[in-house]
């Protein structure tokens, strides 16, 4: 074996090592790119799902608002006729009770219709700049007796420097009340009952985030895509119309924000609400 061959063989091994190192680098870089692509694809898929969900619910919202309005006309006539009947004196107790039952059931229809009728666009006049701390604090104050009665502890932290944001205060209060009410129901029978609320600047620029978490039973993964659908409920029949989260979703959409849910590490559900700091008028 001459020197050249040895040196040539040694050179080949070095080259091979270098090739192997280069290959490893390329592989690592490609793997990184693939991960980035997968993450981008996943994000795109999520955005697409949200857009589909958003368009679907907006269409359902418009339809239900129209239907609700049409239902109110015959309901109005039935309601007036029942009131007139009740004013008539020559009825048996049995007939009076039947009228009362009809009136009560009509009130259920009216309530559902009113809920459905809330999809008209937010009027600009109702928008005022609000402090989220005050909005959430008001709802917590309102719900305090019920939370106490149910044995729910609250753990609330507000970001100290959140800007005032443009809101239809009543409607955002309705969303928060609705989520807290659902959380309270989900925690019934649980050993630990804690309602955690946080506010912060959202990751998406120009938005603030409200996070409401509970230690309830969480949301079945199979139901996660349906919780904002109209009439979807896991409550017992007669206990809920399944419109609360649907309405909440539409209210947040009308504010140019977004709302979603995830299961959390405490076994319960977390609702995320992001609202823009600057209001863009919805077309």
């Amino acid at each position, binding site marked *: 074996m001459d020197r050249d061959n040895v040196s040539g063989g040694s050179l080949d091994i070095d080259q091979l090592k270098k090739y192997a190192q280069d290959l490893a680098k390329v592989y690592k870089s490609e793997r990184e790119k693939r991960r980035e692509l997968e993450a981008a694809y996943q994000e795109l898929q999520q955005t697409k799902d949200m857009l589909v969900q958003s368009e679907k619910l907006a269409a359902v919202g418009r339809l239900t608002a129209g239907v609700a*309005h049409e239902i109110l006309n015959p309901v109005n006539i039935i309601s007036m006729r029942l*009131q*007139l009947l009740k004013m008539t004196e020559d009825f048996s107790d049995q007939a009076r009770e039947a009228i009362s039952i009809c009136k009560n059931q009509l009130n259920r229809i009216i309530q559902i219709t009113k809920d459905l009728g809330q999809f008209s666009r937010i009027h600009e006049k109702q928008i005022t700049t609000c402090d989220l701390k005050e909005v959430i604090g008001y709802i917590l104050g309102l719900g305090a007796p019920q939370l106490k009665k149910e044995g729910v502890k609250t753990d609330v932290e507000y970001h100290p420097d959140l800007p005032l944001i443009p809101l239809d205060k009543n409607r955002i209060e309705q969303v928060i009340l609705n989520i807290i009410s659902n959380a309270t129901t989900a925690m019934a029978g649980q050993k630990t009952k804690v309602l955690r609320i946080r506010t912060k600047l959202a990751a998406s620029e120009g938005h603030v985030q409200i996070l409401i978490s509970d230690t309830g039973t969480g949301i079945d993964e199979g139901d996660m895509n349906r919780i904002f659908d109209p009439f979807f409920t896991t409550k017992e029949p007669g206990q809920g119309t399944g419109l609360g989260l649907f309405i909440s979703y539409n209210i947040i959409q009308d504010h140019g924000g977004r709302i979603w849910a995830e299961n959390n590490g405490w076994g319960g559900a977390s609702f995320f609400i992001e609202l823009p700091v600057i209001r863009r008028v919805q077309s």
Partner: protein
Amino acid sequence: MERILVVDDEVEVCNALREFLGSKGYEVHTALDGSTAISKVKEVRPHIVLLDIIMPGMSGIDTLKGIKEVDPRVGVIMVTAVADQEVAKRAIGLGAYDYITKPMDLNYLETVVIVKIIDLLG
């Protein structure tokens, strides 16, 4: 006898209100659309008009303007579905006296009518 004109494209609404307000001693007239309502205001000079906001053809708002041109003193009470409250508030800006929402609470309606009539006659 105080006169009330009920304007609603639903004939059953007109009938029910005629029955209720008639039983309370009012002279009740009805109209199923806006242009008929304006003619009836000229003809019967009602004290109060109960006016539905959403009607086919002439809208409640346009009917209100027409009625107010004929008789600026007449007390117009707008009747609206919940979702129309913004329109109802606009109507008040155009001279309507008040608005009530569907489904109508007849006792509340009577109160609103009495208050306006006392105001008109007082």
